[in-house]
């Protein structure tokens, strides 16, 4: 049975491998993409009639390559069009090709394809848009919707990004070990960016942006299947799963952000949590820690706590301490301070974040967290100033609404005792 949904799914999952191989062959992104599109059109005609091929990706690579070569030849000499049959009838050839292109070849093809999208000249948003278009095969319309911009604007953004990478020098030889691990790190960072683009959405847009999170997880799993023994890729995949597991509990009915402590934990997706925890288990065996594994371990400690008060904050403090050494950043220290406030109190936490003020002077979370510590210490006026600043810096309406809730509480608490609402 070859129904439309099956073909659609097969084309989507073959895409990174097929476009990656075609890119290695033609060394030009547009030609590779067009070749893949042509192969897909032929698949839509051929598969329902002849049944699906044993290896859809190999079929698409073969047909895409043949069609593109014919196009090139035709443009040189005015030759008659080849018969469709001649191009698509390649049972034997397909088998040969599948054998020749073994797993390790595919692996570097897909990695290269992803790596091209992480070109350092491209701003993060363009990297993401390009990866979603080229690797994931999302339509410009889908991507524009997820980014909340017009289709025309997204089209332009992708065209520009493509032009940039077209001029870039990318090695097509099989990468060496050092180069491969560099590429892997860049690609992992980009996948995390895709995820965060979806995850940081406000409640009003969370639904249209959720596909970004799902796509990031799909790409992380793909990468993990290609590089099965990389603990950081296990960590990345676990991190995304454990964070995404909380999606249903992160916003209330009105679209306001619900903090971890206040979330209805019965809404957490236990299947994703189980998979995330299993991946951390695998990663730990390698005794080769890294930033994604540590962040995943933090997420796992939250996932394991049935109630907020069960959370092992002391362990989270230690993990963030390790992350601070590995990847020093004021944002990591800020996260650690939240754990410290639970273990050693608000004053210790405040002492920790005060030196960050200069570097985080435009960071919403800094003022939100600092305000919360000040509030816990009863320094309400200072807390109010911090919260005001946070609202001014909020990225989404959900963030602003959340801080306003704190402010309302402050106003109530600061009111004269007789007037205090009870």
């Amino acid at each position, binding site marked *: 049975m070859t129904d439309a949904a*099956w073909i659609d*799914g097969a084309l989507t*999952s073959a895409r990174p491998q097929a476009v990656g191989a075609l890119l290695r062959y033609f060394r030009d992104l547009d030609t590779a993409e067009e070749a893949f599109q042509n192969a897909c059109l032929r698949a839509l005609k051929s598969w329902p009639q002849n049944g699906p091929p044993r290896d859809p990706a190999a079929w698409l690579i073969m047909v895409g390559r043949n069609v593109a070569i014919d196009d090139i030849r035709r443009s040189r000499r005015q030759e008659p069009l080849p018969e469709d049959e001649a191009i698509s009838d390649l049972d034997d050839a397909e088998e040969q090709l599948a054998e020749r292109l073994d797993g390790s070849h595919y692996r570097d093809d897909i990695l290269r394809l992803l790596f091209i999208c992480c070109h350092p000249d491209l701003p993060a948003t363009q990297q993401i848009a390009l990866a979603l278009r080229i690797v994931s095969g999302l339509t410009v319309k889908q991507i524009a919707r997820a980014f909340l911009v017009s289709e025309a604007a997204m089209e332009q953004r992708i065209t520009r990004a493509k032009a940039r990478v077209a001029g870039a020098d990318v090695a097509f030889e099989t990468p060496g070990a050092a180069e491969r691990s560099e590429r892997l790190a860049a690609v992992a960072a980009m996948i995390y960016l895709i995820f965060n683009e979806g995850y940081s959405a406000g409640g009003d847009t969370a639904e249209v942006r959720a596909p970004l999170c*799902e796509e990031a997880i*799909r790409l992380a*799993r793909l990468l*993990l*299947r290609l590089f*099965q*023994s990389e603990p950081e890729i*296990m960590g990345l*995949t676990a991190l995304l799963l454990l964070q995404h597991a909380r999606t249903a509990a992160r916003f209330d009915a009105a679209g306001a952000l619900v903090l971890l402590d206040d979330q209805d934990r019965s809404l957490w*997706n236990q*299947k994703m949590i*189980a*998979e995330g925890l*299993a*991946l951390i*288990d*695998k990663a730990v*065996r390698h005794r080769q820690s890294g930033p994604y594994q540590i962040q995943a371990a933090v997420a796992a400690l939250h996932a394991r706590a049935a109630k907020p008060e069960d959370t092992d904050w002391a362990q989270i403090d230690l993990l963030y301490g390790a992350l601070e050494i590995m990847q020093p950043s004021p944002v990591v220290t800020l996260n650690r301070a939240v754990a410290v406030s639970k273990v050693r109190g608000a004053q210790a936490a405040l002492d920790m974040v005060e030196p960050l003020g200069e570097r985080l002077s435009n960071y919403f979370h800094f003022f939100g967290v600092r305000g919360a510590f000040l509030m816990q210490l009863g320094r309400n006026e200072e807390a109010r100033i911090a919260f005001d600043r946070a609202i001014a810096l909020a990225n989404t309406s959900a963030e602003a609404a959340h801080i306003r809730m704190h402010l309302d509480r402050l106003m109530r608490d600061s009111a004269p005792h007789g007037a205090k609402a009870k």
Partner: protein
Amino acid sequence: MLYAILCYNDEDSVGSWTREQDAAVMKKLAVVQDGLTKQGRLGPVARLLPTTSATTLRKDDPPVVLDGPYAETKEQLLGFYIVDCKDLDAALDVARDLGAANPGGAYEIRPVGLFQPGAIAK
């Protein structure tokens, strides 16, 4: 005779089902399973986590632990165990013990996502 029914499918496409699609399939399966349970004919049912969560123990001497699922084609599936373990290391310890008793071949260790113990009538 007891029969094992092993489930094969493309994990990418099954994994990309929405929660609603997944629930719909599970509901239809439950109808079939409930019928078997009432007749006392259904044994344990397990849904495994994706192959990315798999680890393989090659029962060589000494045994070798590899990340990822069992990927060879020269050996065939001959049986399986379901064991309660606190983590992957504990599961690997069990597999090593089993492997010492019966060397050769490999064990693929996969976390179980969903488990129904079932009840076969004696």
